[in-house]
């Protein structure tokens, strides 16, 4: 596999094949907590993407300078710095978004997706791959949050991105925008993803069998 191919695979894997939420089951806390509307999912995904990208770049650049024994501590320092920067900048520049997400911005520090990518990927790979990996994972995470948020908003409030879809006669399924709705939506999506993966594995196993024969 040449460098170009590798960069492509590392970037694309986060979006679908190794989607952080649906396949790796990482970052479930924000995926459940802030996804009661599509726009909240998008904003949370954006903030997480900023932190993930920034941290991956720094960790990858300094990976040979950070001694093994203190690597987790160093990663956390880097991540926490980016989160605080994101928190303060949002408060200063986009107060409306900050008002919606509130406490969840600060909680990006403990999003295991971010620390997980540093430990599993950025600290072991060269800079361009780390960037590709971070971009892919961030896009995949944002996609998952918008999907969960969109479904919950449509069912629970009859709107999408704030635009009303069904008019006055729609009786909102209120539980979908409450915490249980997050679990229900995510659970159903996980079933679908698991089924897709299963049938794909079966198919590739069959093909491999044919070739062997």
């Amino acid at each position, binding site marked *: 596999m040449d460098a170009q191919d590798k960069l492509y695979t590392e970037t694309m894997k986060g979006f679908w094949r190794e989607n952080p939420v649906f396949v790796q089951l990482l970052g479930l806390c924000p995926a459940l907590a802030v996804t*009661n*509307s599509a726009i909240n999912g998008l904003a949370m995904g954006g903030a997480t993407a900023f932190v993930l990208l920034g941290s991956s770049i720094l960790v990858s650049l300094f990976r040979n*300078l950070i001694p*093994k*024994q*203190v690597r987790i501590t160093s990663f956390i320092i880097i991540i926490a710095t980016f989160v605080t*920067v994101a928190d303060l*900048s949002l408060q200063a520049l986009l107060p409306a978004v900050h008002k919606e997400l509130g406490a969840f911005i600060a909680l990006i520090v403990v999003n295991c997706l971010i620390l997980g990518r540093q430990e599993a990927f950025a600290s072991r790979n060269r800079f361009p791959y780390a960037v590709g990996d971070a971009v892919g994972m961030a896009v995949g995470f944002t996609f998952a949050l918008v999907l969960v948020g969109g479904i919950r908003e449509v069912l629970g*409030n009859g709107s999408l991105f704030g635009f009303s879809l069904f008019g006055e006669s729609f009786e909102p399924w209120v539980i979908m925008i409450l915490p249980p709705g997050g679990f229900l939506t995510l659970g159903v999506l996980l079933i679908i993803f698991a089924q897709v993966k299963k049938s794909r594995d079966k198919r590739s196993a069959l093909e491999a069998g044919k070739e062997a024969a």
Partner: protein
Amino acid sequence: MSSVKRAGPFRLILTLAVAGFVSGLVLVTVYVRTAPLILENQKAALEAAIFKVVPGSTTRKAFEVKDNKLVPFEGDGLPMEDAVFAAYDDNGVLLGYGIPSEGPGFQDTISLIYGYNPETRTIIGMEVLESKETPGLGDKIIKDQDFVDNFKALAIEPEVVSVKTGTREAANEVDSISGATISSKAVVKIINAGNEKFLPLIAAAHESEEQP
């Protein structure tokens, strides 16, 4: 991860010290840069809210509480605590007061500001400044126009009470939001607390003004 040999304690301490130092520098820089903007945002939100809760007003004067008395606020910008705002129209006629108040909601502190007309002794507007109520339910205290309209002509005597949705009869009653009773009650409670704290002060200030 390239070095297999273990780094000595000095290396470890040095690494963390440098990381902490750089991180601190970055944070201080960002904080210093954003702090004035953040404060400005809060003040702008408060300022806009004053004119909203006292309809028709275009100028305002801030008063702060000192020794149990209202005195004109001297200083830059707006006082953020223990203050009320007198709101005037274009001709300098007093239309009412914007009274900020806060208290516990369903999840976290709700802070709001409401308009009070001392002549008719009614509440003439209400706006929530900050809350973390449940999105989709509790946040209807901001987004549900029917609920907000409760506070456009609301008598304060003997006190504001919240009643079940759609059963509002007396002038001092507020229709709760169905599904968000606790948040609705919290808003009413916060307004009553504000009344208790500031109305005697406002009344005292009016008396002393009229009898110089």
